[in-house]
């Protein structure tokens, strides 16, 4: 009995355990000091958690990992570009950027949700392609319309040709304005308390949201769309709302992420963000149909430990820092692949079992009739 629970614990938490193993080998290899590692991890938890938390609600609604969270990130970036052109810095700038991002996120989230409703059963691949599609439109707006159609005053963020935004927009005057609010220093470790308060508020919101009528509806839709529809839930609308919420939160998350970084790579900042967030969530032990707040924090910690130590561990082990860089990219992709495969096989197994139990009850029924 006891052995069984251990086996099932291992098989249920294979990915996090594997990561603990890899990290425990890679940390000593990298030669980083504990305090350095701790400071880096705290920074990265503050930087990324909000973005990763934005993935939870669509998972609840049964729409899988929202690869379309990048759309929200783009909306947040547009907000930041406009705010930095208007020279509104610090916390007011961040809040204004968030306000600007909301209508854009709602629009993009609605489009994305509607398209996913047309492609039920393949939401993830659709969301994934949506990234590329909306990225094209983002480029159209930022590279060609800004400075022509959308007025941009300051030449410091404009390309020399007179329209389009430069490859990097400096957010130096906004850098860590949220993190430095109420920051506590313990030795060399800076704890951005206010950012953590914001993240905690989002966690509370998610916990509260699960208990609301809408949250319950989403869980019902996530479990079985047909049953939910039969009980009077507007399935399509509920699904769209879940994507809209996720997109809006991703927009906020991106703004928090970028204020920590202090500069915005206009055309590349969002391109990998979805992949890294999803990988981090999965490393924390989440699956395509189930994710908790605990998964987010465990995942972001483990994933980023590997991210910090991999290049220098690679250098020590193989004599080439590129190996470590490639290794961490490989791990991110492999984790996502593994989680997707686990999800699909589990789904098929569940279907088979339903079929088997149906068949069993049929035979029992006929046997009892014969008797």
């Amino acid at each position, binding site marked *: 009995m006891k052995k069984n629970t251990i086996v099932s614990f291992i098989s249920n938490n294979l990915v996090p355990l594997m990561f603990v193993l890899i990290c425990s080998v890679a940390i000593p290899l990298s030669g980083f000091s504990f305090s350095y590692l701790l400071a880096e991890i705290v920074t990265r938890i503050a930087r990324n958690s909000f973005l990763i938390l934005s993935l939870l609600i669509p998972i609840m609604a049964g729409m899988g990992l929202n690869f379309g969270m990048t759309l929200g990130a783009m909306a947040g970036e547009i907000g930041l570009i406009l705010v930095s052109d208007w020279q509104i810095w610090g916390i007011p700038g961040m809040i204004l950027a968030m306000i600007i991002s909301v209508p854009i996120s709602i629009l993009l989230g609605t489009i994305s949700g509607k398209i996913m409703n047309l492609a039920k059963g393949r939401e993830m691949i659709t969301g994934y392609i949506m990234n590329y599609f909306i990225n094209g439109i983002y*480029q159209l707006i930022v590279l060609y319309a800004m400075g022509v159609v959308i007025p941009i005053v300051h030449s410091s963020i404009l390309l020399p040709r007179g329209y389009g935004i430069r490859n990097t927009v400096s957010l130096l005057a906004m850098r860590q304005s949220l993190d430095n609010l109420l920051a506590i220093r313990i030795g060399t470790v800076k704890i951005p308390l206010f950012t953590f308060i914001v993240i905690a508020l989002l966690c509370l919101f998610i916990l509260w949201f699960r208990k609301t009528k809408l949250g319950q509806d989403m869980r019902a839709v996530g479990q079985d769309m047909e049953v939910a529809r039969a009980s009077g839930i507007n399935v399509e609308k509920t699904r769209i709302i879940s994507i809209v919420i996720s997109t809006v939160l991703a927009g906020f998350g991106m703004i928090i992420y970028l204020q920590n970084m202090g500069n915005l790579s206009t055309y590349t900042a969002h391109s990998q963000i979805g992949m890294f967030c999803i990988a981090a969530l999965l490393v924390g032990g989440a699956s395509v149909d189930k994710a908790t707040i605990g998964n987010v924090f465990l995942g972001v910690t483990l994933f980023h430990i590997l991210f910090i130590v991999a290049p220098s561990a690679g250098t020590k082990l193989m004599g080439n820092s590129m190996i470590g860089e490639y290794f961490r990219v490989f791990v991110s992709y492999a984790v996502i692949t593994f989680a997707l495969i686990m999800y699909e096989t589990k789904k098929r197994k569940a279907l088979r079992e339903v079929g088997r139990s149906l068949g069993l009850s049929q035979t029992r029924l006929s046997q009892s009739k014969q008797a």
Partner: protein
Amino acid sequence: MGKTIIKTDLIDDNNSFMGTVKSAVKSFGLPRLIISLFLLLMFILAPFVGANFFTQLSNTLNRFSWNAVLVLAMVPMIHSGCGLNFGLPLGIIAGLLGATLSIELGFTGATTFWMAILLATPFAVLFGTLYGFLLNKIKGGEMMIATYVGFSAVSLMCMMWLLLPYHSPNMVWGYAGTGLRTTISLDGYFNQALSGFLRINIGHLSIPTGALLFFGILALGIWAFLHTKTGTAMTAVGSNAKFARACGVNIDRVRALSVIMSTWLGAVGILVYEQGFGFIQLYNAPFNMALPAVSAILIGGATVNKASITNVIIGTFLFQGIVTMTPTVINSMIHMDMSEVIRVIVSNGMIIYALTRKSEVSK
């Protein structure tokens, strides 16, 4: 209001001229029609902006010959119901292994090309078998998993290109002596091995006959295969798996075969691409090869579970036509290089359109 009335008229009166036009549009597909008209407009506008029509046509044909086999690699998997082959990078890796091994083993000239195909084949079969086995385990979720299997393989190979014991001085980093370069020139190897064969030059028009011929032979082969017993079984599995099983077809085997074929065609496809392009691109390059091929076949009129050789030819021509024509024409017209953005929007919009078509989901 007026619009809706006209529309109902058209549906009511199928015999009228407009009715025939409408049904023709429907069978050709509206997106495909728009893209065709757009390309036609580009060709018409080209002379006005100072671009030579025949030079542009040659460019399009040239790029067609590089990419057509990669697009052809979509066909077997679509036929067997495995969906769009987002896992194309797996085949590409087999091709890259073939190409680099062929150079490493000391072959020169056009022989490298044929040796590369030969050397890539066992890798393609191996990868395809494993990949096919995996896809049989996760029926229904192929496309997303295929994407990430491709990505994982590409990033794993990024490490391998650095670590594998290659020594040919034309391929490894000069100062370190190990690790392959990101781009390897094919001069002296199989640069233009096919495209240069029987090339026809008439004024500004230049036709890469060899490469077109090679594609033609492969396409004919696939067409013929799809009409054999196994090929028909493959189509049956794709269009109605239950019916196929009732007819005694071993679904898993047919699907695995289609995956192996697609992977092998991907390997050959990248070699054909490289002989035209003149370089081998390693490391992150295969990441961006699958989406253009997927959208090309969709532009050609294929759907998630239906594709023909005609789709491949039309789609590749339209897609590559847009890729070559828009930079020249649009740039000279409005002095903005919007071609890349247009390409991104058109190609990905096409994939989304295909994914959302209701009639295909139910099957």
